[in-house]
């Protein structure tokens, strides 16, 4: 069965891409890569015989399979628009080539295939990434500044990505509460943190920007030379720059190297300095802290959402199931952060 599906896909890709490029094309080396629950990812090489596209390309095809995991995630058509805007704006990202709403029954994006590592735990620890770790904070700061300067109107993104009439903080809180209500499990720790978020919201941002929405080490393609490209744009939306800046500070995204506050690879300063040096608005400590708390809450509720996908029978899966028992780790961190803010000391009860 698998082979038949692969032969059919190869033939469908060749027909489609021949049409896109007005040339004879050859697809080779087609193979499925580890993908998400809602997308299948295939790698392949493409030879284009003639015309303006003539040449050889190393590519991936991302295909929408079934429903989206998260209601707020972009569909592939919108993700293609965002990726194209980012690439055209000079953001370090894989070049998007073509999109079709129906290739053998599924929406499909074809984009450049980047080589490297995306497993956070390896990037923060493996010796071969020591050089990369030294320059990644600056590279990630520069790339994020470029993302936040993408011209939303010029690229017509307002229609394709979500935005909210609420402040970005209130939009997050509203979604967190809705998720908790839908899942139905009592989590006093999360409710208390949400209360803290409601009472400590910083002034609304002066400007709303295109937010990547999942800007952390696990979504960076990294080689020994550092950042090769920013991946996974499906959570892009219009919001506040601080959402992206603080997300990499969240303990979970330090991948076990807890003492290095930014992504387990450095102190925040080199990342923040590069962000500002490349045109990003400076962020004050209080706003950064606020969004770090928010990030923890997003991830805490994220684990509950994943466990719920298992429990509801939506996507029965041991990994999702196990995440339900990881929520307490993130709750401990979030409680500790707000206790520090409230008591002005480290949380003694956490010990």
């Amino acid at each position: 069965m698998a082979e038949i599906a692969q032969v059919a896909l190869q033939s469908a890709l060749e027909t489609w891409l021949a049409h896109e490029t007005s040339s004879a094309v050859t697809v080779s080396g087609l193979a499925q890569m580890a993908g998400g629950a809602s997308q299948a990812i295939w790698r392949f090489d493409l030879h284009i015989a003639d015309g303006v596209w003539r040449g050889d390309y190393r590519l991936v095809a991302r295909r929408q399979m079934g429903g989206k995991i998260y209601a707020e995630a972009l569909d592939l058509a919108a993700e293609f628009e965002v990726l194209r805007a980012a690439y055209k704006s000079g953001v370090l990202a894989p070049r998007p080539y073509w999109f079709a709403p129906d290739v053998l029954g599924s929406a499909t994006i074809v984009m450049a295939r980047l080589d490297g590592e995306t497993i956070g735990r390896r990037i923060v620890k493996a010796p071969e990434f020591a050089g990369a770790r030294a320059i990644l904070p600056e590279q990630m700061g520069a790339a994020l500044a470029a993302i936040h300067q993408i011209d939303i109107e010029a690229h017509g993104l307002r229609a394709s990505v979500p935005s909210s009439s609420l402040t970005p903080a209130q939009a997050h809180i509203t979604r967190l509460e809705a998720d908790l209500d839908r899942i139905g499990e009592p989590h006093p720790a999360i409710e208390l943190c949400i209360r803290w978020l409601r009472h400590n919201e910083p002034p609304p941002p002066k400007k709303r920007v295109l937010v990547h929405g999942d800007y952390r080490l696990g979504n960076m393609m990294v080689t020994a030379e550092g950042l090769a490209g920013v991946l996974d744009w499906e959570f892009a939306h219009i919001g506040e720059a601080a959402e992206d800046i603080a997300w990499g500070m969240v303990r979970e995204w330090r991948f076990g190297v807890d003492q290095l506050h930014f992504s387990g690879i450095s102190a925040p300063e080199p990342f923040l300095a590069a962000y500002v040096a490349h045109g990003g608005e400076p962020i004050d400590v209080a706003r950064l802290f606020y969004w770090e708390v928010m990030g923890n809450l997003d991830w805490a509720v994220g684990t509950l959402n994943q466990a719920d996908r298992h429990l509801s029978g939506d996507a029965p899966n041991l990994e999702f199931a196990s995440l339900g028992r990881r929520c307490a780790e993130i709750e401990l961190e979030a409680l500790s952060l707000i206790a520090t803010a409230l008591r002005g000391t480290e949380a003694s009860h956490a010990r």
Partner: protein
Amino acid sequence: MQDRPNSRELIEAVAAFLEQEIIPATDDARLRFRALIAANVLAVVGRELAAGEAPIYGEYERLTELLKVPTESAGSQSGETWHAVIYTLSKILCAQIRAGDWDDPADFERALTHAQMTVVEKLRVSNPRYLKAFARAD
């Protein structure tokens, strides 16, 4: 009463099987990752069985104190009933927190202390190593 091995011993045997026989025998990275998760999940269940009902009763007592409802003695209910009671009381506490009933700083502090203790109790079962690393980092 069931014969030995008891439930804890059986869980340990399955975890050892995964760790010593399945994980070393596979070069499929994804399968290996899932087998590691499976072994870890069994370890969590083993610790939960070993911990017994004591932490659950502690959580119940704290909730009755916070919510000012009468406390029943530890032996009066089965474990399963305690779970249902704690669930209901926690739901009430959550609704009150969201309604702003615990916003007064002294009240908030009491609820926060309860939440921290509850989370620490959960982590003693689900991830004691994380708990230790967390205390060190602070």
